[in-house]
């Protein structure tokens, strides 16, 4: 296992796949990084030289990844909430943000949205709603 910038990367994986283990890097960004450093598509992490690893570390350290990115996303959502936008309110109500229907489905949004606004960590979202009264919608809607 190669430990790079706080993330354990599996040695036997192809570089462009291994880079996706970073939060903030997907397949497209990984491929762009490999092209920039002239790493061939079938190159495995264990085949990289020390110089190439240093170059890779240099490129990755200039990007916003992992905790920095999480903090940035959280700050963006909190800002939206703070200035009272519609999107901010939807995050706060743990409802879909991008105009999806709520009559059915929206299970994922109810489970995941708004976690960036919470100052505690718990899985009991129903309790959170009632206890902190963060929502603008009538309470009857949330009474189940």
């Amino acid at each position, binding site marked *: 296992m190669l430990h790079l910038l706080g993330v354990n990367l599996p040695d036997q994986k192809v570089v462009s796949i291994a880079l996706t283990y970073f939060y903030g890097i997907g397949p497209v960004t990984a491929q762009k990084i490999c092209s920039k450093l002239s790493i*061939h598509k079938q190159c495995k992490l264990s085949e990289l030289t020390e110089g190439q690893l240093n170059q890779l570390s240099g490129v990755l350290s200039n990007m916003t990844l992992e905790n920095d990115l999480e903090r940035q996303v959280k700050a963006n959502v909190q800002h939206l909430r703070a200035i009272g936008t519609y999107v901010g309110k939807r995050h706060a109500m743990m409802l879909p943000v991008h105009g999806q229907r709520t009559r059915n489905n929206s299970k994922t949004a109810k489970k995941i949205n708004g976690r960036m606004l919470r100052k505690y960590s718990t899985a009991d979202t129903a309790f959170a709603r009632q206890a902190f009264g963060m929502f603008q919608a009538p309470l009857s809607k949330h009474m189940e």
Partner: protein
Amino acid sequence: MFSAARITQSGARVVPKQLLQVSVRPISTTQQVLASRKTPADRTTSTAFTKLSIGSKKLRTGTSTAVNMGSLNPDYYTDKPSPQTEVLSSTTAKEWNIGQFLEISGHVLQSLGKDQFPGYLGKDFKLFGKPALMYREFTQKLVDQLAKNASAAPKTAAVIDGPNGAGKSAELLKLAAVAAEAGHIVVYVPATIPWVNSSRPYAPGADDSFVQHETAMGLLRSIQALSSEALAKVPLGKAVTLGKKSLAADKTLSDLVEFGIQAPSLAHAALEQMLEIAGAQKAVPVVIALDEVNTLWSKSAYTDQADKILAANRLRLVRAFLPYFEGTKQLAKGWVVGATSYIETKFMPKQLSQKLSPPPQIAFKNKDVESDPGLYRPETKVPFDVVKLDRMTATEAKAMMDFYRSVRIVQTPVTDALVAKKWVLANGNPRQIFGSCTAFF
């Protein structure tokens, strides 16, 4: 406890002996407890079935020919017979051997390295038990042309083209083997797809090109292994400077190649210098034989630093050989031959395949239409000679099946009717004939 006791006549209470034998359980120590426990079942391996080992027999049908004869039951399978075959060389590459299977020599195999045979030949050789190929009429034509070109090289290269399984790679391998045995300098590449499919390391180089040091070094190694004696006969003729080191004029091409092998970062320069010096001299003929030659004109799977796909001609290794096929560079003595491959169509550009097999073009009777500038006619001119390899003759098919019978690939007697049936159904394609013989393996 004493319910089983008896009262005797005297009134005494008698308890049977077994009741008096009270078993006193001793205080058990930890060791005794551990020993008494049953060993836990090994749940990491299943006892319901026996897992097959990696080297077990694999069955494949159709035209693929992979059969692993590693772990066969000796009660049912006997040792493979090994018929006597001559080694393919300039002395055995003659007309009287047409239809015979000739073995590729050991030192040619050594230069190819392990499992580096082109196309499906590696699997075929495993099945035959030896690296033997049939000497065909087409092979004789190639050998005759090679002998002519040994005195004066033609101005254009030749490219062997044909459908999948026609035997293009096999013919190129035989030609390289004959040339190597005849003492030519042979640059034989069994597969050029690895040059362009992004499987080897690469790096940006000078002149907007990209270098592949390890691949170039591997190529130099195979040239050294195949033609070491021929390379040692050719002096450099001029002082050659590579990097910080220079080689004197009295050194030979063998020293130049060896230098390139020892210094991977200078392998490209060493290869280019070697091709230039070998191509200009007339002492020893040079044969450049590239399989999958269509990759030289294709797009590679590599990307530049802006993540744009690279054309194959951006690779320095491809640039070293492309001029020979485009007619801009020529050999003083020798031959440049290529063979196409349709296995990976990604590396067969559409324009090239149209040029290799041009559609029939009828001349227009109406001159106005013919002279219309908007009229599109596919480009059919190619800078090299296209040599078509189509189907094998029925006689060759019979000879091939006789050999298959001798190595027990075909179990039934080989009759003319059987050969005719196989030949007609396969349309004379050697790969399809082989596939039909091994369909039930």
